């Protein structure tokens, strides 16, 4: 019954769309990076992201909240996400193993959890601690 309900839920199918989109993004990033250098990949990637940004903006009738703090954090987010994207394209461009690079780069919640503890003084939960242990094991294996 629970499975039937989940399969009927809107959130479930949007989660599936998210997984497929991000899987496609990583795979196409690799395909393009075989020939195109990281800087140009990031330039083109952004051109691709702009129409979606515009569509989201249009979906909100071109109105956005005017919180200077919120906007500063979000713009800074874009700059940092762009730098992380650039180095991911660089990693793919080295011709390293695609499955390993994609799995390793997906470990970024590890850094978020550590920073949330150090900066936001959030408490680390036992399940997250276990997650950090698995992340550490993965990173050691990938470094060989």
């Amino acid at each position, binding site marked *: 019954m629970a499975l039937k309900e989940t399969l009927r839920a809107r959130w479930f199918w949007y989660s599936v769309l998210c997984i497929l989109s*991000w899987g496609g993004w990583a795979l196409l990033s690799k395909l393009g990076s075989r020939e195109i250098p990281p800087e140009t990949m990031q330039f083109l990637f952004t051109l691709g*992201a702009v129409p979606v940004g515009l569509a989201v903006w249009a979906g*909100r009738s071109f109105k956005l909240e005017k919180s200077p*703090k919120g906007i500063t*954090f979000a713009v800074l987010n874009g700059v940092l996400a762009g730098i*992380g994207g650039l180095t991911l394209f660089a990693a793919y461009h080295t011709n390293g193993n695609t499955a390993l690079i994609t799995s390793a780069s997906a470990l970024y919640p590890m850094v978020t959890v550590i920073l949330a503890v150090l900066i936001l003084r959030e408490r680390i939960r036992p399940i997250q601690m276990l997650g*950090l242990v698995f992340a550490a094991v993965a990173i050691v*294996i990938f470094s060989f």
Partner: protein
Amino acid sequence: MHMPPWFWYTVITLVSWGVVGLLQKLSTNYISAESSLVWLVVGFLLLQPFFYPGAAVFHYSRWNLAWALLSGVLNALGAWALFIAMKSGGKASIVAPVTALYPLVVIVLVPFILHESITRLQIAGVISALIAVVLLSV
């Protein structure tokens, strides 16, 4: 210790996206997830002058140019789908770890598309990484 050449690039990705995860929490304290996505694209655009390729871009194959553009579309589309999933009743503690499994799509398709293979030890690493992202996002 000899590290594969991609390793340090990926470490920079991990650290910058890790900070992004933290800033995302902070920005959505003040503005909606959609506004945050729009301003994030503005942040991407601020970097464009540094990466402008000029006419060199026309030397690359059409297919690879298309993949690069489409990768940007899919990345932003994925973020948008994630927000809608959360807004339409998906619990963050379920949606976040499930969507963090996107590398599975790559791992399944790569042997067919790029004919790459990985060792048994590396498979163990990939499984550890997937367990880690699920536990960290719960």
